[in-house]
């Protein structure tokens, strides 16, 4: 039992208002849900829509089919009516457009007029929420509390919104009351209703990140907005840089001087950052970059999703230096994994790239509250009695990690870092011998770093005949694909990477030779993980299932591909 709701209209019509109000109320009442956004790179006009799926447990992905279509304009109806279930309903404003005669699923409610009667047409979205509550058979208490919390500082707005909500409810009653029964509620504790960027922002704050410098770029900007919003209550500084070059160099300066620091961007900004990335490798200064991918090349599809920058993240930057690349799979995992990114950056004194994408960044899901006690904050700085005097920043060590001090930590001791090749003190050198020593020292860190990588998550049949391989934000859609195909009798499993570079290989080496069919499922054109696996292990993945139209996979698309390969 599940209900799928799609709200669509022109940019600026407030689809998010409907979804946030309804979504949060549903989560407060104990329902599990996921809500995704599909929006254009424009501020007004065009066509944007949001999809909300309510299902038992917590759904991992949205799906194509729609039960309730909220069409704020005619275009929305035309574009999405083919997905509407036979028993579905279309909520629309008959003052805005009329449905074709043969369409008998309409729920005409004068959203704007009712809103104006309640106190202003801006509340048309609240009227729409009222209509939805009736169709879902829900009472209004939870939404009313939420309206109270949202508008308590705005004179008169609470009562106006409650009136708008109730007029939507009364208008809807004659059409279809509780005709979309909701799935059972979860018995678990109260859940969070949170999107990917908010999860990453919270994880950064909980990891002791005190500085973020970035240049706004979709879809990473939400992280910057989140931390900026906290900077009045928590000791974190957010500085909007003049460009991404400044952002990464500022971040490095703050990190060198002793605070956990972060920058976030998307592919175009990351392109500007790669010289700084190389600098981080050379000066061995901790750095975490959230790279929220969107389709390229160049400006590409600015508000859409892709996994096209995996190889760029692994190889970007001139010269050779150790780095780790971790990815955002689910909201639950990403929270703790971004903390791991900070830990690795500090322990190995090297850059860590955390790959997210628009699909992850903009998706809200109901999730268990996070356990901040599981986050670690260990700066891995050298202690007073623990270094050879005088202090040298790049002391040669067996594992390649030099004792790290920050400026001003010890009286009389200074810390020198240099983008040129340098000696143990940090001074410029050009001798072949010292170059070899220092390059060897840096690269030695890779060995232990590789051992820190988590093996990919195996979900499904423990002895699969078919194996789907993925990474990052496709985790949810692959899980639902595995559930569906397992139910139809396939011995199938998924192997999903969260830590991706250095590539963890044990499970790959065990499983790949055993399965009859392996498919790498990636939101890109070429199958970058499949190529990486081939390069690192010599093992070939049989098939590549790719999609790079800027939209996330839906389970039915992957199921169709897998079935096609099985038939052949």
């Amino acid at each position, binding site marked *: 039992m599940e209900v799928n709701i799609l709200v669509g209209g022109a940019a600026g019509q407030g689809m998010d208002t409907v979804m946030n109000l309804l979504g949060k109320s549903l989560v407060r009442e104990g329902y599990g849900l996921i809500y995704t956004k599909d929006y254009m790179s424009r501020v007004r006009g065009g066509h944007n829509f949001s999809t909300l799926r309510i299902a038992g447990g917590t759904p991992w992905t949205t799906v194509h089919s729609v039960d309730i279509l909220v069409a704020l304009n005619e275009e929305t109806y035309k574009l999405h009516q083919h997905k509407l279930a036979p028993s579905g309903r279309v909520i629309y404003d008959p003052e805005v457009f009329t449905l074709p005669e043969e369409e008998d699923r309409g729920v005409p409610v004068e959203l704007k007029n009712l809103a104006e009667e309640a106190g202003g047409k801006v509340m048309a979205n609240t009227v729409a929420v009222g209509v939805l509550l009736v169709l879902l058979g829900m009472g209004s208490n939870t939404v009313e509390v939420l309206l109270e919390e949202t508008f308590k500082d705005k004179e008169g707005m609470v009562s106006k919104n409650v009136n708008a909500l109730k007029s939507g409810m009364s208008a809807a009653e004659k059409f279809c009351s509780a005709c979309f029964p909701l799935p059972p509620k979860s018995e678990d504790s109260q859940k969070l*209703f949170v999107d990917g960027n908010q999860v990453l922002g919270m994880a950064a704050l*909980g990891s002791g990140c005190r500085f973020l410098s970035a240049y706004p770029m979709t879809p990473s900007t939400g992280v910057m907005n989140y931390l900026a919003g906290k900077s009045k209550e928590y000791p974190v500084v957010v500085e909007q840089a003049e460009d991404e070059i400044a952002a990464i160099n*500022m971040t490095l300066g703050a990190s*060198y001087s002793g*605070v956990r620091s972060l920058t976030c961007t998307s592919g175009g900004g990351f392109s500007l950052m790669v010289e700084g990335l190389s*600098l981080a490798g050379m000066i061995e200064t901790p750095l975490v970059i959230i790279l929220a991918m969107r389709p390229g090349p160049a400006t590409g599809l600015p508000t859409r999703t892709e996994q096209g920058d995996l190889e760029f993240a692994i190889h970007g930057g001139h010269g050779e230096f150790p780095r780790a690349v971790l990815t955002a799979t689910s909201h639950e995992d990403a929270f703790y994994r971004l903390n791991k990114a900070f830990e690795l950056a500090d322990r190995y004194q090297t850059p860590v790239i955390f790959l997210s994408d628009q699909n992850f960044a903009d998706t809200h899901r109901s999730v268990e*509250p996070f356990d901040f006690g599981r986050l670690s904050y260990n700066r891995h700085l050298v202690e007073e009695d623990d270094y050879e005097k005088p202090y040298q920043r790049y002391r040669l060590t067996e594992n390649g990690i030099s004792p790290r001090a920050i400026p001003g930590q010890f009286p009389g001791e200074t*810390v020198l870092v240099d983008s040129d090749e340098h000696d143990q003190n940090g001074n410029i050198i050009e001798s072949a011998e010292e170059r070899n020593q220092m390059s060897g020292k840096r690269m030695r860190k890779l060995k232990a770093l590789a051992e820190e990588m988590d093996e990919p998550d195996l979900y499904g049949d423990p002895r699969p005949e078919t194996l789907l391989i993925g990474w990052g934000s496709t985790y949810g859609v692959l899980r639902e694909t595995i559930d569906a195909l397992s139910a139809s009798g396939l011995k199938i499993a998924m192997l999903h990477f969260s830590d991706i570079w250095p590539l963890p290989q044990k499970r790959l080496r065990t499983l790949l030779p055993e399965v009859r069919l392996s498919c790498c499922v990636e939101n890109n054109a070429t199958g970058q993980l499949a190529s990486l696996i081939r390069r690192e292990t010599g093992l070939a993945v049989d098939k590549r299932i790719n999609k790079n139209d800027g939209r996330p996979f839906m389970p039915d698309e992957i199921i169709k591909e897998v079935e096609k390969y099985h038939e052949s």
Partner: protein
Amino acid sequence: MKADHFLLGETAWCPGCGNFSIRNALAGALAELNLPAEEVLICSGIGQAAKMPHYIKANGFNGLHGRALPPALGARIANKNLKVIISSGDGDSYGEGGNHFIHNIRRNPNIAHFIHNNQVYGLTKGQASPTSDPGMVTGVQVSGVINPALNPLALALVLGAGFVARCFSGEKEHLKETMKKAINFEGYALVDILQPCVSFNKHNTHGWYKNRVYFPEVSDPADWSAAMNLARQWGDQIPLGVFYNVPRPTFEDSLEVLSGEPLAKRPFEPNDVADVQNEFL
């Protein structure tokens, strides 16, 4: 404290280079201000001037070409107890790093920016810099420089810089005293330091500068128009001195979160911020 305390290492500069005087002045300024080396940070980009962090006993961040200012700002945010100084060249600061120059003057962080302006690219062997005089012939500008020279002092004044000065590496005592004022200035302080490049600039030689520089009387360092007039003088007469000196609120002072202990020294415990997730319930 003596200047020698801050001198370190063997330099890679050409004999006769103006950088030696600038280095001595900087060491002298730090010594006379009695600054402990561990509380000083010298940031630089790339170029001959940018090698300064290797030759002065202090913390050093010798970063990327053009990128001395961003890490300097990051350092100030992380630890406002650090005295942050930038020592870098004209190509680094005004060319490759032009965007950071513009926006950090707007920000006004507490940073003293010493620009070794020899009007030529030294490390890459003699191409024009943004401040090269028109007509100067180089291996790249084969018919002579055609673009007018960038005027860093006028630009800084227009952008609202609070401390704008010009020095000459041959006027050592003045240079040292101006550096001390710039280091003590609360906010962004620009000191454009004219210096000869003995290897690649055969036009603006030590003698060329020596014959032109003079010390005008600056009766009111808060007179922006007078400062602008001095900044725009170039040619037979080149004025030296602090043209403008009017503090305004610094970037750091404008951030309430930075009051109190430097960020880098504050303790942290993840559980202390666990309540932050309650807004999503």
